[in-house]
């Protein structure tokens, strides 16, 4: 690979690193890249830079209170982590509840779309069949 192209690619990779890491080590990493690339070993440096980029972003995500499934640990920083855990729990409950409700044998649904001229709008409804029968019976 052309040296200037590889240097540009490495600078690009460095530029995508978190700002704190970049400020602390960016200049030194670039200096080492220059030294090492003189010996012609560029591809492993680029790969190393890409892996470093992934690690740094992964580390920031972990530190900001996300669930880490791979390592089996739950990092719950006060505030943000607790809120996220609550949101995740509620979402999971809502999804599971919906699936259980919809998959039940007594709950087949009757979708309908109605146009109302008085209030010019469409009404889209998803009612259980039993309810629909009841509604149809009571309609004039």
């Amino acid at each position, binding site marked *: 690979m052309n040296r200037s192209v590889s240097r540009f690619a490495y600078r690009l990779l460095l530029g995508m690193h978190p700002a704190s890491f970049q400020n*602390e*080590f960016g200049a*030194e*990493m670039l200096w080492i890249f220059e*030294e090492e690339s003189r010996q012609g070993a560029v591809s492993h440096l680029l790969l*190393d830079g890409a892996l*470093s980029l992934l*690690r*740094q972003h992964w580390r920031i995500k972990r530190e900001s209170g996300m669930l880490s499934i791979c390592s089996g640990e739950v990092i719950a920083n006060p505030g943000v982590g607790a809120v996220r855990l609550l949101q995740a729990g509620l979402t999971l409950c809502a999804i599971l509840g919906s699936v259980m409700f919809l998959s039940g044998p007594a709950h087949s649904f009757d979708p309908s779309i109605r146009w109302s001229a008085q209030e010019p709008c469409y009404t889209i409804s998803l009612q259980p069949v039993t309810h629909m029968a009841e509604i149809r019976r009571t309609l004039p």
Partner: protein
Amino acid sequence: MASGSSKNPPLSAATLHILLALAGGNLHGYGIIQEVARNSDGHYRLGPGTLYDNLKKLMDAGLVADAPKTFAAKRKAAKEDDRRFYTLTRDGRAALASEVDRLQSVVTQARLRLQEARSGRA
């Protein structure tokens, strides 16, 4: 095994090599890479990303620190280098010692097993 081994978990290969390189004296980043390559006869070569990722972790854990300013100033005055130098802290030395003890016990166990296998075959 050393008593400190329980509080120092096993080190990764990169971490071990970095601590080992710094045990010989204060070094800058590229110096560490070169020292690691020398120590491993060129078999293990750290990339700058791996090096600084691990250095950051080690510094956060208090095992490695910036070299004292007097050291860096001496290097600068001697026009040898104006780079950032890193040094092994007391905790870093203890972690390295405990890892060496751990590896030593692994080697002892391995030798014992191999001897047993050899005598069982004979």
